[in-house]
């Protein structure tokens, strides 16, 4: 059998992911999500600054249930990405880098993002 066709074990569902790995994949996923919502945000900015009608249209849109749900998801994405980012910044400069501390901060980021999202959901409903 040729060397290049050797199988590889890479079944992600069967490999243990420690809490820091979840924070990290969350950081990437939320980043892509946020990137996708930037054009939408710029569009809303455009519309709301165009004229009275535009402003009213955007205000009306933001009052929709479905849009509010989307906003909560975006708020969660921003909160997680921001907290995970701050965690990265601190560890770049050697703050909170030892493994035991890093695990704790990973839990804080994961739960913190959800907490902010719940808070936003409450504020928007």
């Amino acid at each position, binding site marked *: *059998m040729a*060397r290049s066709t*050797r*199988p*590889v*074990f*890479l079944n992600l569902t*069967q*490999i*243990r*992911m*420690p809490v*820091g*790995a979840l924070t*990290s*994949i969350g*950081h*990437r996923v939320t980043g892509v999500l946020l990137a996708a919502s930037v054009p939408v945000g710029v569009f809303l900015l455009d519309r709301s600054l165009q004229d009275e009608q535009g402003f009213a249209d955007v205000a009306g849109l933001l009052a929709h249930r479905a849009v509010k749900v989307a906003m909560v998801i975006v708020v969660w994405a921003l909160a997680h990405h921001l907290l995970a980012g701050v965690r*990265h910044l601190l*560890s*770049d*400069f*050697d703050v909170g*880098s*030892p*493994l*035991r501390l*890093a695990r704790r901060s990973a839990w804080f980021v994961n739960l913190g993002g959800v907490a902010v999202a719940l808070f936003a959901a409450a504020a928007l409903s």
Partner: protein
Amino acid sequence: MKLSISRYNPEHDESPYLQDYEIELVASDHMLLDVLLRLKQQDDTLSFRRSCREGVCGSDAMNINGRNGLACITRTSTLREPVVIRPLPGFPIIRDLFVDMTQFFKQYESITPYLVNDESPPEKERLQSPAERDRLNGAYECILCACCSSQCPSYWWNPDKFVGPAGLIKAYRFIFDSRDRATEQRLDDLGGDPYRLFRCRTIMNCAEVCPKGLEPVRAIEAIRLKIAQLPVHQGGLETHPPKSPK
């Protein structure tokens, strides 16, 4: 004890599969390797690497219940059953639990893993103060078992371009060795392209699984700071009591 071990014989298997085993534990089965060696009496076609049986050679690195570790220092008493044993993730499987380590060792060689000093040799040794020697603590102990690199997602996606935590902790060991004179070249080599070092996302899986309790992620942070010409902390790299797979 019930086990499920990944089997694969390239001569007649399409792809790897899990084979169930059951064995009565005896008093001397302290570590998983003891169990595996006795399993070979049941089924002598079961293949895996092993050597020192005391956690210093790194031969028996494998994925145990989802987490990489050395079979010879993984206690049987705390293992969840059935114990699922698979080869190191991301590495080509040669047979059963044997993986192809060629790429891994190529990355290691690529970081120039030897002291570079062309100054005329001194009478006796190249002197180093205790403080300078301490800087290597937490890095020189790496046994190149590959538990870290094979648990690193960045290494999974680009094993040919990203050096990986093991190679980088060894690179640290030479960059921060006061007797080495190739620091500039080492830093240029690692910092000069977006893959060799900068694929590291500080996911920290490496530190989680290192059976020697080392933290390659800290070594990579230190090298990054040095590339950026920012101050790096004095002293060695922090280590932690290793957690084996459960």
